[in-house]
């Protein structure tokens, strides 16, 4: 039905997909499998017309096609259900379904009746028992996901791509969805199913395609495969291990955490973090691995005092019990956080390098109550040299530097506060390979100098490359802990994949 040949897609020097070839036959459910960053989402965005600039050729029913927009792809009969919900909360279900493709009467007015009727048909089919006029904002997240699915089914599509469709829905809703997928299969549609949840794939998929590092690795029938086989195919790669000084003794704990919980911001009966207990020792690099939504970022933010009011538990920093209600307390106690989204949370892009570096500890550059530009410039130059930040001068706006150099500015900002525990969230996302290695090396140096480091990442090779110890999070729970010697990709991934059904 849909065939992709030699698809290549580059983002600013990074190759996300490299000559990917695959096919999605009619009347079958094809599972697309791969780690975070393997290129699944990029591929789906190309197939559904979100990205129009790529190399390679796509054939639809044997005809070469090239989609310039989502609408283009939709018109051909390719629908995608996105991982993130794309709904307008203040519009009703019917209005959302027909957004941008409203039915009109002969007078040019909206044909509300017709739209409502069609919506009702779809909702009945999807066993969602709410009136079509309900505002989407009033629905539960799982129900919203069903609306998203209905949106894709509204037009008679031949290929339906589902990107993590079960990430927010309950088990009974999953059962309905699977029933629906089986219907679609019977009708001869091609279904593309992306999910981290392996047991789901074994329940519903006929075929699999494995992507790894932007390459299509293998494809075949699902029958006869075991979860272990699949995991091996997802991982199977030689990785350069920088760390792994097995048996390295680490100092006394810098930070100890007991029974840390974090309430869900909107669902009061649910916890995003569930009774986490662990510690990070002096000079130790602890890797924190988890899939999407496992709670990595939430854990770091909670430790940093960002979710005061929703968090509970006990925290000791260097033996002293504390609980931070705001970042300033955490900073004073010697914590630093290099956030995931450095452009939004890490840096003030419109300010220069020097101002960004001094921001977290202006006491460093104050003289008799006033900021001293000379001291500040010296501080900035020290970190520009130490961290090899490539910038014409310390007066350059942060916006104008590359991703790797921006990340180094964020690191410089925290090093200037002289932290005891440095927390890094996806420290090398979107950074080229050289800067990546530099940042790894830097982490090792800092640990050797006695700093505790907690690094959260969704990239296994990264975790394995630097960690002395690996903690695995899955749906807010710590599910495993490995020493550097015990840690293997298979074991970590197994512990990270949540089981649903």
């Amino acid at each position, binding site marked *: 039905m849909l065939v992709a040949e030699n698809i290549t897609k580059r983002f600013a020097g990074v190759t996300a997909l490299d000559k990917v070839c695959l096919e999605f036959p009619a009347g079958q459910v094809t599972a697309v499998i791969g780690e975070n960053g393997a290129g699944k989402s990029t591929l789906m965005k190309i197939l559904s017309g979100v990205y129009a600039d790529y190399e390679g050729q796509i054939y639809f029913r044997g005809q070469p096609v090239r989609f310039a927009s989502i609408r283009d792809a939709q018109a051909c009969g390719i629908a995608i259900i996105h991982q993130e919900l794309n709904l307008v909360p203040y519009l009703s279900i019917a209005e959302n379904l027909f957004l941008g493709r409203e039915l009109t009467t002969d007078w040019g007015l909206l044909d509300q009746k017709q739209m409502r009727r069609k919506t009702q048909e779809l909702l009945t089919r999807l066993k969602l028992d709410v009136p079509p006029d309900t505002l989407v904002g009033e629905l539960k997240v799982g129900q919203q996901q069903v609306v998203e699915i209905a949106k894709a089914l509204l037009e008679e599509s031949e290929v339906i791509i589902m990107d993590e469709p079960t990430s927010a829905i309950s088990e009974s809703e999953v059962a309905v969805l699977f029933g629906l997928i089986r219907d679609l299969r019977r009708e001869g549609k091609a279904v593309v199913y992306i999910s981290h949840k392996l047991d789901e794939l074994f329940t519903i998929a006929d075929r699999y395609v494995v992507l790894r590092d932007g390459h299509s690795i293998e494809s075949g029938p699902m029958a006869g495969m075991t979860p272990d086989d699949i995991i091996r195919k997802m991982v199977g790669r030689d990785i350069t291990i920088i760390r792994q000084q097995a048996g390295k003794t680490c100092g006394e704990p810098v930070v100890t955490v007991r029974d840390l919980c974090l309430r869900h911001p909107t669902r009061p009966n649910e916890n995003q973090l569930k009774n986490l207990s662990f510690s990070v020792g002096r000079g130790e690099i602890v890797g924190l691995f988890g899939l999407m939504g496992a709670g990595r970022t939430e854990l770091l933010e909670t430790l*940093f005092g*960002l979710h005061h009011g929703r968090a509970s538990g006990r925290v000791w920093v260097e033996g002293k019990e504390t609980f931070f209600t*705001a*970042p*300033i307390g*955490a*900073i*004073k106690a010697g914590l630093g*956080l290099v*956030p995931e989204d450095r452009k*939004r*949370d*890490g*840096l*003030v*892009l*419109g*300010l*220069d390098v020097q*101002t960004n570096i001094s*921001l*977290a500890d*202006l006491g460093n550059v*104050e003289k008799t*109550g*006033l*900021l001293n530009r000379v001291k500040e410039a010296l501080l900035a130059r020290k970190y520009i040299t130490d961290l090899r930040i490539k910038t*014409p001068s310390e*007066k*350059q*706006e942060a916006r*104008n530097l590359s991703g790797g150099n921006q990340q180094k500015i964020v690191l410089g*900002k925290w090093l200037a506060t002289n932290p005891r525990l440095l927390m890094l969230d996806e420290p090398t996302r979107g950074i080229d390979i050289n800067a990546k290695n530099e940042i790894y090396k830097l982490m090792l140096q800092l640990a050797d100098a006695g700093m505790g480091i907690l690094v959260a990442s969704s990239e296994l090779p990264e975790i394995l490359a630097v960690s002395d110890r690996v903690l695995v999070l899955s749906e807010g729970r710590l599910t495993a802990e490995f020493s550097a010697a015990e840690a293997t990709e298979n074991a970590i991934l197994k512990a990270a994949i949540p089981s649903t059904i």
Partner: protein
Amino acid sequence: MQLALPANSRPLLLKFQSLIALFVLCLGISLLSDKFLTGANFWNVLRQISVNVCISTGMTLVVLTAGIDLSVGSVLALAGAIAAGLLRNGIALTGPDLFIGFTVLGAVVAGLGTGTALGWFNGWVITRFRLPPFVATLAMLTIARGLTMLWTGGFPITGLGDSFDYLGTGWLLGIPVPVWVSGLIVALAVLVTNKTRLGRYIYAIGGSESAARLSGVNINRVKTTVYALAGALAAVGGLLVTARLDSAQPNAGSSYELDSIAAVVIGGTSLAGGRGSILGTVQGAVIIGVLNNGLVLLNVSPFWQQVVKGFVILLAVIIDKSNAKND
């Protein structure tokens, strides 16, 4: 030479740009009117501008944090009226039959206190209840105007005495007192924005609130301080206006917030926050002041003055936008 460093030369060019605009404006008016380039008119313009400079300095701080303060005009009126009323009538308590008279200094402090308190309230509402600054200060615009009417009964308070009026009409070392006052405020504000933690945090919050929060900045405290300062500076403007007219008018300062936002915007401060300067705003205020003065001297009808001013604001923002795009 400047072009080699685009990031650094841009603000310079911007400053330069408004100076050029100001120069062209002055040249044009002086060609059309022989009353423009006289000593008397020069000081007159500066005296008029000084009120807007005070308000706009506070407004700049607010706008730099990506906020807005619509209440400055009303706060100005209330602060002026409070000072004038206390100076003229004191406080007579009917219960214990007590009369408290106010010195000029006491009245000035009370006026400043009023402005600061109202500004602080703005900041408290905005940070505590997470209201958009536009809404919170719009409410304060009405509240403060209503309080002014209540306090004055809708009538001007006049006869404030020479020593108070000196604030608005006096001269010191050959320069009008309001010019001294606004000059001092500008100097302090430049120091604060460039040389203190508070100033640094203001720019950081406007540039990226989340990055500032993660760097340990107490966002709420900084914002509250900034709104309190804006209120205090509006009060200074209120005292100057009241003293110049020897009268606290209940509807003083109406639509001053618009002139002040115009000065900020013409001065190159981004309404999205994080970018701009006090000195830019001063230039903006001067441009508006000169434009007003010139249009009056040229006998342009007040209705047309408003139209012209509006187009100048549009022009300034369009130029600023295209500058940002070329960045």
